[in-house]
């Protein structure tokens, strides 16, 4: 696999770099060289200790290439993807099929701001893309390097200073086809001073064949900008996602990221924040509902590089069947980051003897005037609460679902759209085998 991936890069390098300056060419090349040297991380690697990539590496993946001829044998139509959209919110829509932009299914804009695709921005917005591409990912692990070398397309957003997007952006990444598919997607989000944007993102397989999407996102937030990003992970049971998102925040900017993971075989989320100027605030919420053989992994990292920044983190996990959860929360408070506020919470419910969660807070604090806290819990459903609900006439299964929803509440409470909330409740209800419309 490693060799095939490397070959696909060296074979197409001239395509990848045709539109780029030598600096970007060098960045891609260095990334591929690092991937070749390191290969995919194994469980001996501390960051991948509980997340064995070999589980998904064994498939015989076809590699989607941005430069081969488009395969139009089985065109995807709107009706095929409609059910995966959040339909009742008016949105910009950027759709990718097997890593390639689908203009037909998308609704982009260049009116006052850019919501389009990285594939077109290489040339069109070279002056914006080049200084940013790969800047936040240089030191990251092998899967990210692989992406830096091989990725071509994904969401591109640029919002100028003091502009608020008039509606949210839905970024949809679909995988299709009869054979297993390995896809790289890459997004770049540039928010100017005081800019505001909202993104709803979903990776979705349209086939029962295995798929693996390796996604990397770089987000640059100007002073006083706002970003709300909702990641919906409700993929097919054959689908895997490894995603590394890095967000750099300037003075007084506010970022909120929700990651809602209910379905999919293998989910590895890396979410990094770099708070580089005073007053920046990052909030992270996660909800993992896993059963069967699912694996849901959250690795988060916050670098407090400047004073007076705040990070708040609240991840909830419910694990049933033989599912595994991983939570690793790193908070680094650097020497100059006085008056940092950093809070981290990870709470888990284990519903079966064969399910497990490995949770690890990791705080490194080099400033002395800070407020940092972390907590993690692992428990079962509260029998007292269950009896209370049942004694009021609520069936055992509904009572369990109600308690799980209540447990999960914090993680989804801040999602503002009622229709998105309703969709989440439906998804959670489906997962728990309960019609939630009857319960809440």
């Amino acid at each position, binding site marked *: 696999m490693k060799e095939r991936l490397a070959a696909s890069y060296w074979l197409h390098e001239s395509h990848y770099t045709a539109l780029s300056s030598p600096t970007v060419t060098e960045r891609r090349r260095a990334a591929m060289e690092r991937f070749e040297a390191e290969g995919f991380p194994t469980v001996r690697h501390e960051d991948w200790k509980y997340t064995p990539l070999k589980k998904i590496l064994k498939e015989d993946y076809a590699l989607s290439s941005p430069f081969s001829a488009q395969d139009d044998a089985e065109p995807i139509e709107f009706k095929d993807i409609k059910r995966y959209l959040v339909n009742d919110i008016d949105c910009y829509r950027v759709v990718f099929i097997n890593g390639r932009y689908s203009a037909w299914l998308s609704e982009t804009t260049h009116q006052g701001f850019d919501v389009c695709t990285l594939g077109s921005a290489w040339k069109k917005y070279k002056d914006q893309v080049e200084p940013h591409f790969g800047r936040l990912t240089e030191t990251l692990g092998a899967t990210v390097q692989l992406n830096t070398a091989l990725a071509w397309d994904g969401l591109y957003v640029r919002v100028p200073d003091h502009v608020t997007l008039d509606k949210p952006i839905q970024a949809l990444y679909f995988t299709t086809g009869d054979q297993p598919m390995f896809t790289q997607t890459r997004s770049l989000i540039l928010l100017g001073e005081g800019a505001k944007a909202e993104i709803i993102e979903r990776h979705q397989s349209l086939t029962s064949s295995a798929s693996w999407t390796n996604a990397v996102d770089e987000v640059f937030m100007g002073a006083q900008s706002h970003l709300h990003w909702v990641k919906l992970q409700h993929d097919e049971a054959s689908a895997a996602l490894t995603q590394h998102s890095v967000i750099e925040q300037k003075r007084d900017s506010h970022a909120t990221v929700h990651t809602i993971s209910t379905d999919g075989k293998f989910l590895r989320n890396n979410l990094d924040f770099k708070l580089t100027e005073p007053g920046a605030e990052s909030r992270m919420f996660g909800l993992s509902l896993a059963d069967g053989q699912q694996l849901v992994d959250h690795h988060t990292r916050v670098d407090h590089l400047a004073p007076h920044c705040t990070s708040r983190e609240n991840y909830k996990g419910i694990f049933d069947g033989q599912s595994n959860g991983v939570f690793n929360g790193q908070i680094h408070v650097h020497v100059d980051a006085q008056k940092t506020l950093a809070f981290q919470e990870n709470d888990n419910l284990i519903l079966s003897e064969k399910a497990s969660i490995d949770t690890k807070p990791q705080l490194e604090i080099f400033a002395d005037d800070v407020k940092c806290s972390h907590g993690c819990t692992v428990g079962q459903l509260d029998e007292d609460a269950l009896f209370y609900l049942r*004694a009021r*006439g609520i069936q055992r299964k509904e009572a369990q679902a109600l308690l799980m929803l209540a447990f999960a509440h914090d993680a989804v409470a801040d999602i503002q759209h009622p229709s998105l909330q309703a969709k989440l409740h439906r998804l959670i209800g489906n997962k728990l085998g309960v019609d939630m419309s009857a319960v809440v």
Partner: protein
Amino acid sequence: MLEIVNLHASVDGQPILKGINLRIGAGEVHAIMGPNGSGKSTLSNVIAGREDYEITEGDIRFHGESILELAPEERAHLGVFLSFQYPVEIPGVTVSNFIKTAINESKKARGEEPLDASSMLKKMREKMDLLEMDKGFLSRSLNEGFSGGEKKRNEIFQMAMLEPTLAILDETDSGLDIDALRIVANGVNALRSPQNAFMVITHYQRLLDHIVPDYVHVLFKGKIVKSGDKSLALDLEERGYDWIKKEQE
């Protein structure tokens, strides 16, 4: 309505109830009193169907049928209600959603139509007035951040909404100031009818000034050792439980 016959129950092999006999008829209010650890809360939990207890002997019959094999929710559907001593906090579930769910689950189980939204709201308003509750209550998370008094009032509110035939009030008076006690008692009295019955578990006589019982029973070491009318409660208030303990030893 309720018939408890020679009921023995234990937890983890430890016998708690050691042969309870009690009959409660429609329209009656029974008070169960007794010192700490005498088995009062166990009795109420066992009637409501808590599964941590093992019934080793005897029977509980409701309207003539044994309910020992029924799940807590099935007992609730039949009209058994337990007001908890320590109501559980459930963040993220509003009082109104919870009550709606509870009522409609019971209706579903009885094969009745669910209550429509406007009748539900009307009924809620009516019962809230009865219990002098604030309207904002409905949209709060169930018991979360409620004071002791609010929790108990919320229990009685749920009872008023569910209209049980048998209501068991487990130390509903504990943690209530005198005004809250009066309001709760008024709520209970307003719900009294010839068709339903109450079992009021309490340490103290003061609740019984407001909810006047037809019968008073003293539970001691897992048995009902004395029964009488409301004057027994006054006796206990005056003399404490020591004379009962002495009588038993």
